Each structure stands twice: as structure tokens, then as C-alpha cells.
């Protein structure tokens, strides 16, 4: 197979672009990239764009690690990465409501709210993670791919990959806050059994796997998305702390 001079060997890619190879193009024989590219050009659903974004994230990280490259390439890849992150973040976090209502402010069960509170404390360093009991509902069968996929999350850009890559401060809601530890620490314990939450229980909280997918869209392709945003969490926390 002819390889462009100086380019790393990428068998999955050279296939569709080598000259003189007659190929049929049934959809089921197409490479995933080709299909995704077509989807992107046709402005498909956000989920397919998200998949494409994740593919590009992996590709981009590979490009950084393969060989020294020109500054132009580094800047273009970095800007593309930032754009992908931005798009994925926007897709995960719907726009905040215009007029906050009580039912929107409190869409969580006490249990799940408690879980978030604990997670926030972990994030803020107020709680140790090692002593947390495992979540029984977080079984490998329920979400077998999430944790493994999460290991592919790139390290913070600029810190270890390339000195010229822009470093973005990890913020709540961005995928930098995701980690295996963060997902694994979700626990079902109800620490506020005395609080009557019947008034605010509206919808069942999605399963941890769905929750994980909503936070870590970068590492889970097929999970449903949770309709939730961080401003609501802040308000919930204020109410819970006040009580």
C-alpha cells in the first residue's frame, strides 16, 4: 500500500484513498470515519456529531503523540480540539431555563442529590474517596464500556501533551472533571432519610450509567443523555445546605 511520504502508517485511513482500487460502496462496508464524515456533512443529529467529535479527539491526541510537527499543525489541531470540546460541552449542557420554577429547581431525588453533594465534596477535596462503598447499581453489566472508554480520556491538554497547547482550567461540567474515580464513586446511600422529598420527586433519576454518560459524553457513545445542568445543582445545594 502506498503511504504518503513522511506520514505515519495509518492502515484504517489509507484504504479509502489509495488510487486504482475499485471498490463497491455499500453502506455496511464503509469505514466508520467515512460514514461519520458523510453524516457530518449532512448535519446529522447531535449524537452522531458527538461520536465524530470523540473520534476526532482520539485522532488528535494520536497526532500529538506520533512525531514532532510544525507549529502550524499543532495550532490547527489544538484549535480543533478546543472546538470539539466546546461543542461537546454545549451538547451535554442544555441552555439554562429562562424563569426558574420550583419543579425545575428540584428535579432530583434526595438520594441522587446526596450523591451529587458527596461528589462535589470529593471534587472540592472535602471528602476522601477511598472509603466510599461501591455502588451496587454500577455493575459492569449495566455500563460495561464506560469505564474502559473513560480511560481514553486525554490528559489535560498542554500539561503533558504539548507545550504549545492551550490549557483550559477544569470547570464543573466540562469533561476534564470526569475521571474513573469520579464515576466509580457514585454511591446509592441515602444520607438524608429524614427529609421528605415526595414533593420534589418528579422523575426517577437516571441510572448511574446514564448519569455517567451525561457527564462523560466523551467516553460513552451510546448512553442516553440526562437533561440537567450545573446551575440547577448549585441551587439544589443551597436548598439542601439551608435545610
Amino acid at each position, binding site marked *: 500500500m*502506498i*503511504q*504518503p*511520504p*513522511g*506520514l*505515519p502508517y*495509518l492502515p*484504517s*485511513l*489509507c484504504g*479509502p*484513498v*489509495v*488510487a*486504482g*482500487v*475499485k*471498490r463497491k*460502496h455499500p453502506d455496511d462496508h464503509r*469505514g466508520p*470515519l*467515512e460514514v*461519520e*464524515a*458523510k453524516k*457530518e*456533512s449532512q448535519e446529522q443529529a447531535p449524537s452522531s456529531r458527538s461520536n*465524530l*467529535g470523540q*473520534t*476526532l479527539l482520539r*485522532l488528535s491526541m494520536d*497526532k500529538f503523540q506520533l512525531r514532532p510537527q*510544525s*507549529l*502550524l*499543525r499543532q*495550532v*490547527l489541531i*489544538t*484549535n*480543533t480540539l478546543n*472546538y*470539539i470540546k466546546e*461543542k461537546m460541552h454545549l451538547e451535554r449542557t442544555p441552555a439554562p431555563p429562562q424563569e426558574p420554577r420550583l419543579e425545575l429547581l428540584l428535579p432530583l431525588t434526595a438520594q441522587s442529590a446526596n450523591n451529587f453533594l458527596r461528589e462535589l465534596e470529593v471534587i472540592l477535596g472535602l471528602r476522601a474517596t477511598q472509603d466510599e462503598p461501591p455502588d451496587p447499581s454500577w455493575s459492569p453489566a449495566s455500563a460495561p464500556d464506560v469505564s474502559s472508554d473513560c480511560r481514553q480520556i486525554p490528559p489535560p491538554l*498542554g500539561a503533558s501533551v504539548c*507545550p*504549545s*497547547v*492551550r*490549557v483550559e482550567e477544569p470547570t464543573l461540567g466540562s469533561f476534564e472533571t470526569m475521571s474513573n474515580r469520579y464515576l466509580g464513586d457514585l454511591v446509592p446511600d441515602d444520607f438524608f432519610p429524614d427529609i421528605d422529598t415526595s414533593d420534589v420527586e418528579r422523575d426517577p433519576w437516571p441510572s448511574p450509567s446514564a448519569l455517567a454518560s451525561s457527564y462523560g459524553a466523551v467516553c460513552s457513545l451510546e448512553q442516553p443523555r440526562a437533561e440537567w445542568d450545573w446551575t440547577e445543582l448549585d441551587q439544589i445545594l443551597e436548598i439542601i445546605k439551608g435545610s
Partner: protein
Amino acid sequence: MSQKPVGGPPGEEEVDWCLYQLNGTTEFEVSEADIISTVEFNHTGELLATGDKGGRVVIFQREPESKNEPHSQGEYNVYSTFQSHEPEFDYLKSLEIEEKINKIKWLPQQNAAHSLLSTNDKTIKLWKVTERDKRPEGYNLKDEEGKLKDLSTVTSLQVPVLKPMDLMVEVSPRRIFANGHTYHINSISVNSDCETYMSADDLRINLWHLAITDRSFNIVDIKPANMEDLTEVITASEFHPNHCNLFVYSSSKGSLRLCDMRASALCDKHSKLFEEPEDPSNRSFFSEIISSVSDVKFSHSGRFMLTRDYLTVKVWDLNMETKPIETYQVHDYLRSKLCSLYENDCIFDKFECAWNGSDSVIMTGAYNNFFRMFDRNTKRDVTLEASRESSKPRAILKPRRVCVGGKRRKDDISVDSLDFTKKILHTAWHPAENIIAIAATNNLYIFQDKVNSEMH
């Protein structure tokens, strides 16, 4: 746009192109060092220089008409070959410096000698090309080999005479402009004052005097204080052909900045910013990469600028900053393949572009050894192929067509069959005639319009 031959002067738009010459080997295995990395005609078109990844420069000269060989006029024969740059190692930064010739620029001819600048990533060199067809004979104190004679053997004095000899072309390095760039040099451009030139790297542009090697003036510096804030780099730059105070540089974000050196010594603040507003609905993951400008060229008149990005060529009027006056699609059928092209790195290819002598036609390269021409007057365009197999000497080139889908005509090529390893990145157009030079990997194709070809 219709697929009609283009390329002639105004009023004679339809031009049939034919292969005039082909230089290079037919070997299937191409040595990396033999890959041509730049092509440049001199100001008269008499000389054509190529640089390659092995650091060599080959100069071709157009042969004068011969009575014995009426077809010989117009042929570009090898005039001189020399090693311009050698691989180096920066011990302070532990970085290899490739010998690859990034750009060649000819200086306007001032005397019998020709001069050119060549550059790799870091060092620019000024070369002088001179001819010698006579040699002095009959020295009193030296013998024929140049050794001093024994004075006791000198019994009479004679007047040395010049005797004809086989033409010898001498190329000698006149200046070496080193240590002026921290990043990789992407452009050099000789000023119309014929005394200065500029060199641009990813983040800075320096102004040099052609006679001074140890000092340059930094005229543009876009390096941020913190490199983590870097989001844009310089991709190309050029001096205005007539106004020695004006120059333009392009960026990876698709913008052009016209700078006036009279305004300030450091031209960080541009005089004009040429930028096309982006339609947010068309934005995709690859928008920024494909909008990065890979080449910018002033028209010969100085009124327009030609830019090439990944999918288009654009003509800008210096008097209109808001959008290009003309946009031509080079290979729009690749828009749906951008993900694959990102994966195989082709999306980072830097295609060059060129004007014809009258600024009425523009040319740029594509994949599969295709190159495209766009007639600005008739709005016709054509796709031609630089290929040994499909172009016989002096036979008219057949326009090629890429089939995206639907009905496929005979000789059409499917977009899925394009060879992305064969790409025309470097092209040059003779300053006055319809002669074009196309670099295709290690081969240099020279095409000429049929009329010109038959005359000669």
C-alpha cells in the same frame, strides 16, 4: 463552471495545453530527497529553479532558437545544479534542521549574473549564478594549471588572451543569513526596492538587507507572551510588487493582513485586515483547518491578492476587506471526506497558487496529480492532469473530470479513486507567456499552450 480550456490572455481565452517537457525519473520508488518542494521562474522567464527535499537546487534555462533544431526553442534544459542546504543539528535545542528547500526567490537581474535566495527552515542563502565561456591564457607568472612558474624559466613577457571554452556555469554562495528565525521559515519575498527582502516564520517576519547578514529587523511579531495563548500562526507573506512599503501576510485563521512599513517600525498593527465572515451555520469541526491560508500572491498589477485555502482559491481586491471578490472551488467534492483527510494528514497539505502573466487566469494544484485553472473573465475552469501516461509530448491535454455521484461519463474518475499520495502542491507560471511548471512528486512537468508550442 464549464470544463473548457482556459489560460490565454483576454480575448483569447480558449487555450489548449500540451506537455512540453518532463524532467525526472520514471522509477516507481521515489527517494524522499528527490521530491520537489518549490518551483520558481525568474523575472524574465528565461530561468526556472526547483528546490527539493534533499537541499538541492536545479536551475533550468530556456534554450535559444537554433536553426538546426527548430523545435529546440522554449525547451528548458538543466543549466546548473548545486547543493544549497545540508542537514544540520541544533545542539542547543536538540533539533534536527532539515535540508529541504522551502522557497526560492529570484532577484531582479542587475548585471550579467543571476542571483537567487533559497531557504530551508532556518537559514536563507543568497546565491550568485555566473557563466564563463572564455578563459584567460598566456599568463607570465602562472602555468596553465595556475601554479607559479620558476622565474628563471621566464625569458619573455606576453599579453594574456581570452580564449573560448565550453560554457561553465558557476554558482557561488554570496551571503548566508542565519540565526534570524526561531520557528520554521515559510516564506521569503524580495522587495521591489531590490535592496531588501523579508522572511517569515510561524510567528515573526524579519526584514533583511541583501548585503547585511548579521542583522535583521523584526517587522511583525505575533508571538503571545504566553505560548499557551497561541491560537494563530503566520502561513505565508509577500511584498507588494510595486510599493516597497507594503506587504501582506496570511494566517492560519484564514485572514490576510496588509501592513505599511511607513506606519511604524513594528507592523504588529495592520493597515488592512481582509477577512471573510464565517457563516455560523456552516461551521464544522474542520472549519478552521480548511480556512487556513496556505499561500498568498499579489497580482502582477498589485491590485489583487490571490489566496489558497484547502478547498478554494480566492481573489481579493486591495480596496475591499470584507470579502473576496471571487471564490473558486478547487475540489469541493472533498468536503464530505474531511474526516478521512484529517486522519491521513492530507488536510494539512499546503497548496500554492499562481497568476498568469496578465492576471486573468489563476492556477492551483489538487490531488491525483490534477491541477486546476480558472479564467477570471469567462468564469470557465478546467482540470488537467500531470501524468506520464495520459500526456504524450505535444499532444493536447484532455480536461479531466471528477465524478462525485450520479451518471459517470467515460474518462471520469470517481472521487473514491483519487490518489491522495499524488498531489500538486507547487506550481509556477511564466511571467509573460503561457508556460507553466508543475511539480509532481519528483517530476517537473512543463506545459505550454498549443499555439506557442507550434510556433516553436
